[in-house]
């Protein structure tokens, strides 16, 4: 019997460098981060799915002043990335120079990767494809 997907499991997949999204069993829409239902069709029957890991850059910033927990990691990128499967997620941007943000081009192709922060926590990230 399949269990209802939880946010805890979603976060664990990221910690395990094995990103999973949700998929609506009714209409097939891919959903990440998790929602309590599918906004495409209203379905509530959701299951885990893997994704291609390919996407494009929608927008981003470079954080210079952070909450205490993250201050040692500054400057760092936070970006909105649209996956080829259609859903958008918030992620770190990797393999680019945060001191030269003007060189980063919106729309650029990206592929999924992971970054371990100074705290040991794994962030979902994307680097240029």
């Amino acid at each position, binding site marked *: 019997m399949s269990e209802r997907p939880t946010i805890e499991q979603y976060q664990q997949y990221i910690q395990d460098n094995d990103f999973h999204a949700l998929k609506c069993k009714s209409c097939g829409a891919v959903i990440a981060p998790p929602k309590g239902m599918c906004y495409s069709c209203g379905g509530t029957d959701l299951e885990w799915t893997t994704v291609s890991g390919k996407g494009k850059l*929608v927008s981003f910033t470079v954080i210079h002043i952070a909450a205490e927990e993250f201050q040692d*990691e500054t400057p760092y990128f936070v970006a909105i990335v649209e996956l080829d499967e259609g859903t958008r997620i918030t992620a770190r941007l990797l393999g680019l120079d945060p001191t030269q943000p003007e060189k980063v081009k919106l729309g650029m192709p990206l592929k999924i990767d992971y970054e371990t922060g100074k705290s040991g926590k794994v962030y979902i990230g994307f680097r240029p494809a």
Partner: protein
Amino acid sequence: MPLRETNIVSGAQTKFGKLEGLTLREIFAEAVDKATVGAGIPKEDIQAAFIGTFIPEMLVHQGHTAPLLADYAGLRGLPATRHEAACASGATALRAGIMAIESGLYDTVLVAAAEKMTSVSTNRATEALAAAADDEFESSMGLTFPGVFAIAAVAHMQEYGTTEEDMALVAVKAHRNAAKNPLAQFQKEISLEKAMTPRYIAWPLKLFDCSPISDGAAAIVLTNNERAKQYTDTPVKIVGTGQASASMNLCDRTSLTSFEASVRASRIAYDMAGLTPKDMDFAVVHDCFTIAEIIASEDIGFFKPGEGAKAVREGVTALDGSKPINPMGGLKAVGHPVGATGVKQAVVLYRELIGEAGANQVPNHNTAIMHNFGGTGATCVVNIMRRADA
């Protein structure tokens, strides 16, 4: 159909800024006193209190603030309820007051709001503010509040050609207006060059693109048509109100160049009032960051999408422009004691509409709109007000 019964008959705010030596309840009581007895309205006439505070639990280690604040302000015994919607806490308290008057449940109510933010470290205040964003999916990745609006700025720059200088011009305007406002945190003009100082908080947003950490309180008294003239010859009617929500996280928004809750709340308010953006003489919008003012001016229909920056550049939104925005200085220069801001915005509309805004008086002041934004834009409240004799 326009609202029928809600009149603002007084409005006041404390000075905004670092109010040293004063605690949350003292700041709150000062605003309440100014808006009640200070305006000739006996506290005995107040039948209920609707109170906005965002996060006193983290900032001053105090929950259950409504009865505590009401008691200290001399309103013991009244129904006092707290309303929380991050930076839109004040305006959600105001909407509760509006509903109380429109329903006929009460004749006269107080809407008041306060925040004390400077008694903790900047890091602690940043952490408290971050509680208004999506902790599980965004804040936990190190996204900050300035970061949220920076992402919107980058999208706006890409789509419409808005520049860092356009954003800096919003800050210059805010400081120019606040320089004339004795209740502002920063009563000092700044040059464009200074506003462009490259001290990045969240690229491309710099220090002068961001509103400050502040203490402050504001209060207004609402009453019905029958009572309004007892208190003032110049009541201001609230004729339309709208509120909407959106996803907390940015990645779930279909657009990053417009905030859907702002668009929805303003359309509801205009429809209720039977008015359009053309009917508005001026606006007070939630400029927590300079880009937020540019986007809000588009979202409330003052300018077409992408043309907000041009309006700033051409002086259209200046105090003496044809569509003044934030004539007293906005959040950027007057300060942003988070929970208090929505009520302060209503106080600004009230003072401008009755012609008592002093050096910050806009020339045309019959009808105006206020736009109060919560957190990442997950809540927006818009109210339209009109002088009763207009």
